[in-house]
């Protein structure tokens, strides 16, 4: 019998494994000396995006209340995560968002109306994923995580420099697909960054019922993936940590699991009644740690927030909001024939027949409507 020695495989020793563990405290930059070392152009850019992001959430929420969207899962309070995620992607990288991550998709450069078709209800995915390198907004929880691994793996097999960033919620880390994705990423050493926005709740279920782990970032070590814990309301920290993870992946260092501690200020969606499961005090506590206010405070204290910077940020946000009101304020007119167009590359005879039937129904309907005039 041959004895296989562990030396054949370059594995970290047990002692090395501790480097996979997150720190006891989340990484913070705002309010520390490190804050002043960050490029002021970058900081101002992140500020503009935060202001824009907050305005986006407010405007889309308002439009939803007016019945212009079917539903809106808001990221109010999580804008630092959304901004950070979009900002660290290179043009060739891919973003894998959930239903909640419309803001990061918009900040990635996708047209807001195209981004929101899912929630407006005129089509599922409104943008071209390949053009923008943004996967469809994913609703079945964590099921997009293996996709992010697969795409990164494929790119590496082809010798392309592509990193994938998978966004996922705290609740979704309980799903099997999340764990399978981590394991595949680790075994393949695929250039994938998993970014958990821990906003404390999965609809009504608090994190304490979701996991007994010391943190979600601790879930990395079991797969051999480094876990990093970051203050998700500190945009500088989020940006720094994600940048490091992306660079590591790009350099062939494999996947990273980043957990951002944040909070969902709004209800799960407009259809949810959050008073059933959380207190006003808790919400007020987190409003004190608002990501936009935190950065604003820093900018003021360091004299970086001149009135011009502030005004230009607000103007850009208002312009975006006005555009949203104009373009989402009218009824969408999706074509009923779209039901049949994209089910297969080539339509089955049965579908063709069904399409003909619907077309005939609609023709008869409009004839009836026309006949009444």
């Amino acid at each position: 019998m041959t004895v296989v020695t562990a030396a054949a495989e370059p594995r970290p020793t047990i002692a090395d494994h501790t480097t996979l563990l997150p720190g006891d405290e989340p990484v913070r930059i705002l309010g520390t000396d490190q804050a002043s070392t960050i490029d002021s152009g970058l900081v101002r850019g992140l500020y503009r995006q935060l202001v824009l992001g907050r305005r986006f959430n407010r405007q889309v929420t308002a439009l939803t209340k007016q019945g212009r969207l079917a539903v809106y899962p808001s990221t109010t309070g999580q804008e630092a995560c959304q901004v950070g995620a979009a900002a660290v992607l290179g043009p060739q990288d891919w973003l894998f968002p959930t239903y909640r991550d419309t803001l990061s998709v918009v900040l990635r450069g996708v047209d807001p109306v195209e981004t929101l078709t899912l929630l407006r209800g005129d089509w599922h995915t409104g943008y071209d994923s390949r053009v923008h390198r943004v996967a469809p907004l994913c609703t079945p929880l964590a099921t997009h995580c293996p996709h992010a691994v697969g795409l990164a793996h494929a790119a590496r097999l082809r010798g392309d420099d592509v990193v994938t960033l998978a966004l996922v919620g705290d609740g979704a880390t309980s799903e099997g697909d999340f764990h399978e994705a981590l394991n595949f990423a680790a075994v393949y050493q695929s250039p994938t960054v998993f970014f958990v926005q821990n906003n404390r709740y999965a609809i009504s279920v608090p994190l304490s019922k979701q996991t007994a782990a010391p943190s979600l970032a601790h879930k990395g070590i079991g797969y051999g993936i480094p876990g990093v814990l970051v203050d998700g309301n500190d945009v500088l920290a989020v940006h720094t940590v994600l940048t490091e993870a992306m660079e590591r992946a790009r350099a062939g260092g494999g996947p990273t699991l980043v957990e951002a501690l944040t909070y969902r200020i709004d209800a799960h969606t407009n259809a949810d009644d959050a008073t059933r499961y959380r207190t006003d005090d808790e919400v007020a506590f987190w409003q004190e740690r608002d990501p936009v206010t935190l950065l604003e405070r820093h900018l003021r204290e360091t004299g970086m927030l001149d009135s011009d910077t502030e005004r230009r940020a607000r103007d850009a946000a208002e312009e975006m909001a006005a555009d949203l009101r104009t373009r989402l304020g009218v009824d969408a007119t999706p074509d009923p024939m779209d039901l049949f167009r994209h089910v297969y590359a080539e339509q089955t005879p049965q579908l063709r027949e069904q399409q003909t039937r619907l077309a005939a129904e609609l023709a008869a309907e409009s004839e009836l409507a026309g006949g009444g005039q």
Partner: protein
Amino acid sequence: MSGSTTMARALNTALRDAMRADPTVHVFGEDVGQLGGVFRITDGLAAEFGEDRCADTPLAEAGILGTAVGMAMYGLRPVVEMQFDAFAYPAFEQLVDHVAKMRNRTRGNLPMPITIRVPYGGGIGGVEHHSDSSEAYYVHTPGLHVVSSATVADAYGLLRQSIASDDPVIFLEPKRLYWTREDWAPQAPVEPIGRAVVRRSGTSVVLVTYGQTVPVCMEAAALAQADGRDVSVIDLRSLVPFDEETVYAAVRRAGRAVVVHEASGFAGVGAEIAARISENCFHHLEAPVLRVTGFDVPYPPPMLERHHLPGTDRVLDAIERLQWADDIERAWHAVSA
């Protein structure tokens, strides 16, 4: 809408009564505890019975159903909630390989008295993955009972029967009908699962349906009556077992049948029923059995769903295509004129 009670409330009462009557009944799933479920079907259960009896689980459907299997092996009677139709799919492996097969592979030693509640179907303006009608997957899996309620009274009765059943039951809740009201007071169920009900009796055509499309068929039947067609509506209530007796008796009498459901038609429940009617009532049929179903497409986005959902017009149209003698006469006159 008139009536004292919603279907949602009747389901809630059924769970409460079942939990009071039987301490082995345990309810669990996503958001079913403090929130009372996203549709409030489990409202107040955690408060009354404690978290051991009505529990929020981690967010993992395979885990929910897999632990239900273990609990059932130990003699408990789990009632689990899948939050929406399409979110039951991660549990499919547990369902097909274990829940459905356990009794058979253990020669009856390990029954699986598990109730799996699944809000199903569309018509509520839900975005992607919130409106599937997934019954065909379930009915095709031997070992599972599959039921669906269409009235407030049945919601209560069928859910109580499902929980009492020693076999696994997929309990499909027509979410579009959650807020329909009826005057109703809880009544202990008398019949076992598996009995269809004639909602409306007529002599010229039978509409066979269940769940979401029962009200559609009732409305179509009333409209057809005005056109001189005397229409029966059969609410199957249970897809597995399938109540052949009730269906065949009505079809033999009328000679014409249309099967109506919201799910896609191809290889759907309607195909099975139409085939069985053809096999068993052939000599009584005046026309081929027709189906009115959703199209064979992924469920459309909210703004397009009305084009997909079978409505009264499509049902009436199918009724008119059933080769009526007066049509034939009319056609004959047209040709000979």
